[in-house]
């Protein structure tokens, strides 16, 4: 195959344009770095500086106060105390976020799939419907779930009548309500990246799968799902990370025993205990970074076929 060699660099469209190499590469020089500058400054000011401040705060002597000022004493004991006092809330946050993320995948994948492949001329309308809730404030949307799940509202009455709930059963102020709120609030962050990934899949690849003896389920597992992985990973991160740090849903839909780490951090800041609050924040951040790292590594290398 001698001819295959010399055409190897040619795509079908540019078969005749085999000119000299593009000189663009050498001309860029400083302009690239200049364009990076605003973003870099932004990150320095609003990410690096706050993070350093946060870590520093977490090591202050906790006996200080906002009025008297804090002493920087490298007080690592803050972390031990925070984990001792707030361990359950910590674990609960991660579990709630995990359940909500899984619920988002279960609900969001079929939705994204339907929008990408089955919606036809309804595609844009369905996308708008996914985004539309953002036109209302996060707080108002979560508050409205108090009504949906309320003891005297239609949903609870119907579930009682169907004996899904007992005669005294309720939904509001339960872990279920908190996870429902998290799932509802973060669902669009799962659907949109999934849709973007699925929409890019050439339908002929799915046809090729079925042509090569793969049943619809096997085609999904071996072709559609691997190609949707970038969207699934992005969606999982966009859902799990904010859900783990959220406190609004627990505040408005939960009870004292559904408190998440975000609620504790908020209370500690409110009470002026900055070092403990900062220690909790840093721990949450570190935990999420580790989990995300492990997850992305696994999702990226896992043999799916």
């Amino acid at each position: 195959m001698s001819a295959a060699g010399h055409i190897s660099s040619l795509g079908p469209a540019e078969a005749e344009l085999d000119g000299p190499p593009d000189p663009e590469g050498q001309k860029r020089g400083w302009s690239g770095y200049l364009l990076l500058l605003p973003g870099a400054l932004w990150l320095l000011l609003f990410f690096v500086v706050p993070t350093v401040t946060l870590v520093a705060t977490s090591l202050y002597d906790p006996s200080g106060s906002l009025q008297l000022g804090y002493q920087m004493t490298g007080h690592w004991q803050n972390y031990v105390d925070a984990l001792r006092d707030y361990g359950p809330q910590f674990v609960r946050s991660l579990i709630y976020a995990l359940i909500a993320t899984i619920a988002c995948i279960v609900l969001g994948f079929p939705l994204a799939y339907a929008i990408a492949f089955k919606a036809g001329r309804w595609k844009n309308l369905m996308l708008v419907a996914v985004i539309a809730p953002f036109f209302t404030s996060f707080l108002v949307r979560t508050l409205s779930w108090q009504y949906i799940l309320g003891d005297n509202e239609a949903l609870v009455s119907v579930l009682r009548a169907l004996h899904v709930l007992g005669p005294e059963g309720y939904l509001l102020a339960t872990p279920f309500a908190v996870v429902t709120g998290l799932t509802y609030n973060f669902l669009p962050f799962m659907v949109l990246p999934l849709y973007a990934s699925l929409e890019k899949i050439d339908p002929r690849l799915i046809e090729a799968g079925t042509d090569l003896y793969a049943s619809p389920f096997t085609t999904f597992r071996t072709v559609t799902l691997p190609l949707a992985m970038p969207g699934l990973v992005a969606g999982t991160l966009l859902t799990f990370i904010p859900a783990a740090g959220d406190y609004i849903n627990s505040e408005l839909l939960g009870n004292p025993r559904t408190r998440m780490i975000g609620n504790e951090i908020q209370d500690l800041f409110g009470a002026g205990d900055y070092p403990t609050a900062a220690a909790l924040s840093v721990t949450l951040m570190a935990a999420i970074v580790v989990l995300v790292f492990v997850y992305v590594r696994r999702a990226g290398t896992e043999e799916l076929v």
Partner: protein
Amino acid sequence: MGTDLQLTSVTKRFGTFTAVDDLDLTIPEGSFFALLGPSGCGKTTTLRMVAGLEEPTTGTIMLGEQDITRLKPYRRPVNTVFQSYALFPHLTIADNVAFGLKRQRRKDVASTVQEMLALVELEHLAKRRPAQLSGGQQQRVALARALINQPQVLLLDEPLGALDLKLRRQMQLELKSIQTEVGLTFVHVTHDQEEAMTMADTVAVMNEGRIEQLGSPEELYEAPATTFVANFLGQSNLVSGSVATTRGDALELDVQGARILAHAAHARVTSGEVWAGVRPEKVYLSGAGDDDGADVNTLGDGVVSDVSFVGVSTQYLVRMPWGQELTVFEQNTGARERFRPGDKVDLHWRPEHTFLLDASQDASAGAEVEDA
């Protein structure tokens, strides 16, 4: 025969549009069969119905004794080489080729993949991803991915359409030799008449959901059945005339006042008004009035209106007294004089090269879709 592919009165409608119209077709086992036609003629839809990717509105598709009309695509012993290949971008070349075997839970997948990659000369690229390969290499991966399953029928949907001309010519010969080697039934969809004629032993010319004519490339070329085939497959000069007398196999026509002979074997109509056709390369020119004998057909008093030199041949346009322009290709043997625009010429051809078509058909059908 064992596993002939047989389509019986197959119709496919999309809404009000009829893509395939009451199609009857038998493709013998082991043949290289081409479905040739312009875009939108229903050839790809026909292929997809055989693959199981579309379901016929009515009609049946049989593979040997088995009715596969409503069989799911993944249960058919049929594989497809898709237009622009549809290789799985997330899998290596070896995994792409192994895909069908793994789904069938075959044994010795790795060694079979090795053999198949050797057949298409891509062993050294087994670990690459499709995006790292050239168009021609991707095409061969697509072929290997389908062939490895040893389907009873291999479907090829414009498999060479994305390649540049030179590579396309080379792949045509390669595909043909692979087909001879493996002996499977190949059904090849294309709009390129040269590709169809080079590779296939049987060509079906499709137009508007129907088959216009089916036969060997020679039959289709020498004795087209319709004006569409005459124009779509190569070029034709079609001159209106009428049958004057019939003597056994010999027909005598009156064409614009001239006496033209034709053979019944190449005549779709044997009486009344006809289109008398002749291929441009069958015609040769002489200076006006130079008699070339009584046993050739002659149309006289033409004027050369255009001359194009194309290396191997010279293409003339000759304006006839009744206003029509006829095309003549002359081989550049150097033995014959070359004419210039304005020269007065006569056109000659042998009677067996005349073909007669139904005068009610559109003389320009199929002509405007000629691929560049």
